[in-house]
């Protein structure tokens, strides 16, 4: 087993798992909270819950689900139904709290005015505009003055339908009105990067409207959600928060026999596998494959970990009804070795942390072994009913994303290209020759609006090649991009096989004739390509242009960034004595004449087209 696996065995411990049965969750919440708080390295965040109804239960459950994701929240709660006043009148308590995230917990009960019967479509639209104007002013004040990310409930539907089925068709009907508002909320979310919808319209349908609101809870406590609904809501909000902080999973590792197809391929042969619509059980496996394929299309990396002969295992994907194809998998481990070792190798091959993996296997013994040996890998208890596998993956929201960017969608192309690069590398006499053959171009420039989302995503996801592991919110990234006392640089790397996308970010704070590097990170996928040298060359040129004489590098060691401990030394920085505990300081005198360090990357600030037949490729999964 690798050194990483040994480290894990020595130090890591699986976080307590939250029970799926609501009664167990409710009954044990005190104990669970205590256990979850004992986890090391919890990420702190400040969340203001602004409620249109009582939010005590929401807070309690959300705390549990966030702790289970390794996030420790501190909460502010508005008074009952004081969400609007708290913001409109700038409640000092809320302003002093300085939330990172504002959760606006409103429901259909908080709609100020529904249309009157028989109102025309135009009149109803006017009401929609009026309602939206109120919400938009409210959201914009939060963004502008609190600088917080907003998570906003859209609207659930009332259980009662005074107009019967006409509720669905008449413009003046409540149901139709709420659907219009939901559409407007969605429009707003699409055009505002720090605004996220908590889709309670879907959640309430999933839970069932009868279960969603408990009359006794509403009339006695003004809780707009029953305990069952509160659990569903908390799970969903925690998934959004997790994605904002870049803690969502990136890779699905799958067993084959009786997981992706029915039967044992080594015994039954490909022709006898249960797969496809001709057979009841085969249809279940086909549908699960379709779900997995859908995940892959939106950028989730797929890997196989199966106890099989490799060639036999691969044959399964030649089944005519197999939706998944061999090329959909970025890593393929079929052998007779223990699965934990194979999974560690998969993580290494893909250059991602073990905590980015979800392992799905129908065999409970294999799940138990992986869970035992690799506590950082998520191992959902999927049971043996394959028709439930997708439901369980959905329920636990492993792969929630805050935004989809082009790089996410092109991940499969990237991996194909990466495999080509590796194959190509093996045929050269030396590494330099290989790098030269890649015909690399680095596009390096100051932060620009079109890349801010991507930059924020990288800052909040990168752990390994990250000198300080400092996180920035979208607002902070936007602020430094416009602040002349900062030098900001992003870097994209393009080679003859394709576009690696935006892979590196640097933020330096200029103080007089010195710049201190607050953030410097790079996707591990472009390690050993000299991209860090290209960034340094660009930084030095910026410093020379601005009369900056000294560059100060900061290295804050973390559990994951050991690979960059010598980064500044390698670049020729001198270590500064007497640095404070937990951070190393390095300095570099900017010379008047500087010899560029990059040998194999042509550097430009201009957009460059990727080679034909390639697409912009991802970096987010590899960080």
């Amino acid at each position, binding site marked *: 087993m690798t050194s990483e696996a040994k480290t894990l065995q020595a130090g890591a411990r699986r976080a307590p798992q939250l029970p799926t049965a*609501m009664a167990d969750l409710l009954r044990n919440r005190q104990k669970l909270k205590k256990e979850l708080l004992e986890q090391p390295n919890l990420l702190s965040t400040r969340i203001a819950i602004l409620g249109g109804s009582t939010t005590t239960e929401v807070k309690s459950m959300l705390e549990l689900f966030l702790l289970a994701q390794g996030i420790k929240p501190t909460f502010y709660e508005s008074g009952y139904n004081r969400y609007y006043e708290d913001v409109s009148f700038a409640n000092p308590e809320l302003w002093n709290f300085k939330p990172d995230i504002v959760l606006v917990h409103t429901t259909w009960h908080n709609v100020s005015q529904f249309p009157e019967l028989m109102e025309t479509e135009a009149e109803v639209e006017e009401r929609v505009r009026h309602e939206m104007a109120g919400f938009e002013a409210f959201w914009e004040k939060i963004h502008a003055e609190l600088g917080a990310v907003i998570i906003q409930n859209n609207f659930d539907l009332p259980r009662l339908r005074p107009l019967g089925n006409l509720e669905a068709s008449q413009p003046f009907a409540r149901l139709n009105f709420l659907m219009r508002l939901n559409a407007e909320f969605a429009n707003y979310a699409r055009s505002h990067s720090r605004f996220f919808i908590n889709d309670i319209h879907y959640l309430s349908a999933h839970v069932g409207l009868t279960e969603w609101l408990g009359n*006794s809870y509403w009339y006695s406590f003004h809780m707009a959600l029953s305990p069952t609904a509160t659990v569903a809501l908390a799970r969903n909000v925690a998934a959004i928060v997790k994605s904002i902080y870049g803690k969502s999973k990136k890779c699905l590792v799958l067993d084959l026999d009786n997981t992706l197809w029915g039967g044992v391929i080594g015994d039954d042969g490909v022709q006898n596998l249960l797969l496809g619509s001709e057979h009841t059980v085969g249809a279940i496996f086909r549908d699960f494959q379709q779900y997995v394929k859908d995940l892959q299309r939106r950028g989730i990396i797929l890997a196989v970990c199966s106890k099989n002969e490799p060639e036999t295992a691969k044959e399964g994907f030649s089944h005519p009804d197999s939706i998944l194809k061999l090329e959909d998998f970025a890593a393929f481990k079929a052998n007779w070795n223990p699965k934990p070792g194979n999974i560690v190798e998969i993580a290494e091959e893909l250059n991602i942390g073990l905590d980015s993996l979800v392992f799905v296997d129908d065999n409970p013994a294999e799940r138990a072994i992986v869970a035992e040996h690799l506590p950082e890998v998520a191992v959902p208890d999927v049971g043996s009913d394959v028709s439930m596998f997708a439901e369980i993956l959905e329920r636990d929201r492993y792969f929630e994303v805050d935004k989809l960017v082009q790089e996410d969608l092109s991940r499969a192309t990237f991996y194909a290209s990466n495999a080509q690069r590796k194959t190509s590398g093996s045929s050269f006499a030396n590494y330099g020759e290989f790098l030269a053959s890649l015909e690399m171009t680095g596009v390096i420039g100051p932060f620009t609006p079109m890349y801010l989302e991507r930059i924020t995503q990288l800052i909040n996801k990168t752990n390994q090649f990250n000198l300080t592991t400092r996180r920035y919110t979208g607002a902070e990234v936007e602020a430094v991009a416009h602040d002349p006392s900062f030098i900001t640089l992003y870097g994209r790397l393009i080679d003859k096989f394709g576009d690696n996308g935006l892979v590196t970010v640097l933020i330096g704070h200029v103080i007089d004739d010195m710049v201190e590097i607050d953030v410097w990170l790079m996707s591990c996928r472009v390690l050993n390509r000299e991209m860090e040298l290209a960034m340094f060359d660009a930084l030095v040129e910026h410093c020379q242009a601005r009369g900056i004489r000294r560059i100060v590098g900061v290295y804050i060691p973390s559990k994951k960034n050991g690979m960059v401990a010598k980064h500044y030394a390698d670049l020729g920085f001198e270590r500064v004595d007497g640095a404070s505990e937990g951070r190393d300081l390095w300095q570099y005198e900017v010379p008047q004449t500087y010899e560029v360090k990059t040998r194999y990357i042509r550097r430009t600030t201009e957009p460059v087209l990727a080679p034909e037949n390639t697409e912009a490729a991802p970096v987010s999964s590899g960080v």
Partner: protein
Amino acid sequence: MTRYEFLLQMDEILGLPAGTLRGNEKLEELENWDSTSLITFIALADSAAGVNVSPAQVVNCLTVADLLRVARVDISPTAQSA
């Protein structure tokens, strides 16, 4: 549900070591008896015991034994020793 099982569940709800509660404790003297545990009690009475307890009934309870009564827990001597 037996009295013993119920008391164990109440221990868990209130974050107390198993076997702490005996039944005669005053709710107002229990540190963790708050709105969250009250709601949890109602939800559990419904999901675990199938008894629909109204918030008003709980608010009128003064002791753990009162909660047992509204949750219609079997308080017979045999049940106690279960």
